[in-house]
């Protein structure tokens, strides 16, 4: 398999997780655009990066932040989000947790913690890779990850409020 085909497959296999990561800043359509741009940028590299997966996640992160900063794009994004909102997760019968519940719990986390959870769980990256992407030490990543999991667990275990008298 050629180098280009290998890199393309590598990203295509992780496209959903990368789009989920980009959605921390963007809507579904823009997130897909950003992943596509990151793949193009990866294929344009004269030499394949040492860690192509982490490199692409970082490219997705930078592009997503740039997109989110652009005022015109933000307006467009708001229109698209208003028109068609897509969930972060697919609903599947064999899931141990409901997709919407997971999304809500994630949304309640501070952005920098949520980012780590997404990269660790759905991006399947190591703490060192996450640290390189976010410019953080491994210890900081680990502490934030553990804290975020604890917060989510508390959130999910909280009993549902009912209007019973």
């Amino acid at each position: 398999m050629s180098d280009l085909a290998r890199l393309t497959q590598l990203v295509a296999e992780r496209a959903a997780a990368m789009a989920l990561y980009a959605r921390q800043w963007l809507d579904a359509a823009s997130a897909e655009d950003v992943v596509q741009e990151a793949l193009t940028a990866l294929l344009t590299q004269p030499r394949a990066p040492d860690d192509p997966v982490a490199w692409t996640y970082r490219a997705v992160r930078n592009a997503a932040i740039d997109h989110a900063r652009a005022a015109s794009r933000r307006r467009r994004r708001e229109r698209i989000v208003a028109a068609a909102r897509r969930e972060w997760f697919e609903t599947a019968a064999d899931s141990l947790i409901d997709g919407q519940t997971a999304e809500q719990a994630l949304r309640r986390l501070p952005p920098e913690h949520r980012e780590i959870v997404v990269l660790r769980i759905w991006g399947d990256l190591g703490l060192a890779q996450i640290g390189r992407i976010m410019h953080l030490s491994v210890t900081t990543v680990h502490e934030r990850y553990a804290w975020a999991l604890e917060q989510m667990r508390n959130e999910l275990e909280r009993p549902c409020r009912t209007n019973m008298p």
Partner: protein
Amino acid sequence: MQDEHALTPAQRELELALKSVTPTAARVDSAAAAFSAGRRSARRRARFWQSAAFVLLLAAAGSWLVPARHIADLPSDRSGLMVVDAHPPSPVRPLSDQSLFILQAAVREKGVDGLPATDVPPVYNVQTISTF
């Protein structure tokens, strides 16, 4: 790994539960990405050659302009200039007897008789009858 050992069983359980949830599928057009990447790299290569050509053009224009400026810098009024020939005058060689000027002068003074004798071999009158 540090993260694997530091998590509590409850956190690990939650990790597994979260992993069972699949993110919404995203479409990535591999062919379009490869095409865009190819076009981008071709554009970069073209830009390199354009830059090289521009630099060469600048160098050529510079090399043409520099001597022109050098000549333009020379003083236009050259009346004050004095040309000095440093070479010693070459000795005047005497004209030979066969030179055109000597021969012309001899003819002017003495007529054809003034011309110097030639070393032409004698010409014999050959009759055709004697050959046969």
